[in-house]
């Protein structure tokens, strides 16, 4: 895929943790391209490497015992790999920002939310306290906190879970970054609040033209907000697709199996088609297709040779990594 001005372009991202005695290869060659104003959902189970990918892109894994390598890393046309650590740090918060899953632990409990939001303006834009406070109030209003002028002095514990998540989102969009990474932003929230937050992220994306990388394990959440979906399994992307095609006609057996394994509210089935076994741990051996042991379509070649992520025949916008790609596409879906 060639993209002129991608909001984010990452090629061949590898992350290895070397802390314990053995090396854990958590991300094994991930490519990500997100256009401005687009929402890409990175879908995967725990241990699939989706959160590690997000942190590596943000540059939050520059720490001992962690090896991060990328072939290409461009943020809005700027080459991250050519920058110094200090330059990259200045981009965090202003050009790209991250919304964490757990808002309570992501906010500083001893600073008022106004101080925390205002810090962004004071550090990045050199505003005065008074100006920063005024901008904080505007932002709280933008994300729908009632009575923002009064609540700006409150501390995180005085807000509910949904409100805290709104505050985190306010901080993330404060400097109008080109890329917003949301790591499971609604997993800790109730269903009724989740709908509000997803709607908020989508509204901000439209209004500010931000590209969104949404990390999630929830097929429903991805279906609600994503333009494109990338499915991760065992540290690799196994399928990328525009959202409609993915759900209508999955190209990878893992996606196919996941869709069959989740109960559908409107179409309850007598029996869920469970996927046998469990996902491999992050340190598992890397020969052949990682999904082969659980795959109903696996043959000898799947255990020997790892399938490359290739374009899906007839759908240039899609890629999938499966030896039996055509077979999966041809399968009649109910």
């Amino acid at each position: 895929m060639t993209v002129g001005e991608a909001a984010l372009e990452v090629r061949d991202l590898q992350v290895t943790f070397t802390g314990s005695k053995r090396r854990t290869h958590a991300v094994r060659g991930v490519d990500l391209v997100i256009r401005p104003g687009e929402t890409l959902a990175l879908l995967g189970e725990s241990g699939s490497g989706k959160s590690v990918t997000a942190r590596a892109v943000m540059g939050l894994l520059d720490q001992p015992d962690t090896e991060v390598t990328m072939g290409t890393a461009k943020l809005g046309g700027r080459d991250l790999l050519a920058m110094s650590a200090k330059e990259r740090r200045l981009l965090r918060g202003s050009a790209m920002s991250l919304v964490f899953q757990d808002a309570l632990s992501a906010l500083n409990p001893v600073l008022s939310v106004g101080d925390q939001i205002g810090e962004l303006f004071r550090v990045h834009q050199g505003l005065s306290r008074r100006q920063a406070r005024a901008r904080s109030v505007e932002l709280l209003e933008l994300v729908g906190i009632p009575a923002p002028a009064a609540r700006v002095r409150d501390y995180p514990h005085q807000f509910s879970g949904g409100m805290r998540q709104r505050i985190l989102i306010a901080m993330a969009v404060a400097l109008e970054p080109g890329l917003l990474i949301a790591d499971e932003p609604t997993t800790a929230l109730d269903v009724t609040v989740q709908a509000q937050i997803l709607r908020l992220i989508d509204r901000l994306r439209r209004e500010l033209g931000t590209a969104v990388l949404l990390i999630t394990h929830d097929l429903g959440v991805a279906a609600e907000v994503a333009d494109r979906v990338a499915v991760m399994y065992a540290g690799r992307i196994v399928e990328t697709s525009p959202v409609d095609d993915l759900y209508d006609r999955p190209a990878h057996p893992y996606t196919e199996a996941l869709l069959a394994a989740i109960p559908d509210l409107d179409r309850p089935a007598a029996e869920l088609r469970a996927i046998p076994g469990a996902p491999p741990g992050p340190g598992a051996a890397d020969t052949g297709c990682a999904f082969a042991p659980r795959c109903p379509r696996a043959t000898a070649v799947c255990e020997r040779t790892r399938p490359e992520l290739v374009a899906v025949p007839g759908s240039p916008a899609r890629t999938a990594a499966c030896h039996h790609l055509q077979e999966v596409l041809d399968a009649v879906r109910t």
Partner: protein
Amino acid sequence: MPSVPDPEARAENPGSRAANPEARAENPGSRAANPEARAENPGSRAANPEARAENPGSPAANPEPRAERPGPRAPKTGSTQPAEGAGPRAGKAEPVVLRAENLHKTYGSGIFGRGGGVHAVDGVSLELRAGETLGIVGESGCGKSTLARMLVGLERPDSGEVTFHGRPFARGRRAPAPAVRRRVQMVFQDPMTSLNPRMTVLDIVAEPLDVHRLAAGRAQRRDRVGELLDLVGLAPELMHRFPHEFSGGQRQRIGIARALATDPEVIVCDEPVSALDMSVQAQVVNLLAGLQRRLGVALVFIAHDLAVVRHVSHRVGVMYLGRLAELGPAAEVYGSPAHPYTKALLSAAPVPRPQARDRTRIILAGDPPSPVDPPSGCRFRTRCWKAADVCAGHAPPLEGAAAHLAACYFPEAGR
């Protein structure tokens, strides 16, 4: 006879108008012949004696309020039913195994001398029939876990009572009798922390056998554990391993095997799949449904995932801030929700179909209020688009036609 109120039971629950629960449960059939006892039967109505007094006729006009009728199904999809053949739908005669009557539980009141306790469960009544699955859905803080713990006797209700085959679970400060406790077991949410990491699977699964002295000798104990592991789809050879050697899904199977060890009639599952990866959830859901078909055990299935609950349950109760908002057959609650909260909850649930994205949705404003200081009257009224003055007064009673009950003054039409 059920028509004769038991003075003792009344004395304990003055508000609950409970007739002698023992007599009632032992004669389930006689209820049909006795209008008065029947009227008392939809237990939650007992939570609102005043409201009932205002509508004395309505429950009695209804021939069998709690019966599991095969009646009108979800009009929307005409879909297949979950776990059909498990029985309880077919049999009106299925006896009530577990009954909760007007349960209240408040935590932490008075620790700081201010009396502002968390009203976790506030007047919940329900009953569970043999072989059925009762799903309980609700958001965090709605009291569903507290309800689960009271149903198995891990928590004692402040008032109200849980009866097992009509026998009170626990009276006063005494612990539930072992004979009762044995028959009501629990599966916990987190398979990582609910298994002792220093015990082998054999010892974990055999612990209930030891406690209740159900196995004579080591060979029998080992055989029984092997049988149980086989039942939940684990190889019996694995019994000498430790929990950390298993994946999340396998650990949850161990937890289920432990719950099955005492041959229970009821298993209360508190979020049994929410800690599991999505590709593994279906395995455990299918396992529970299969066990119910084979063993006829009654399940209380508590979860926040609406689709999973829909999938496994015959009947579903929707909780909001410590109270049941709606209770009824799964197909009716999901197909034609009567309570606005149920409607909003279903409408907000993400649907794994991008085409459904543009459906009209009810997006509730704000968060659920704090259970420390819940709103007066109907607890949902602060977020409800139908709320009127009457909602702030008395809490609406849980009532409705047939088996589909809702606690709302303005229930959705079309039921």
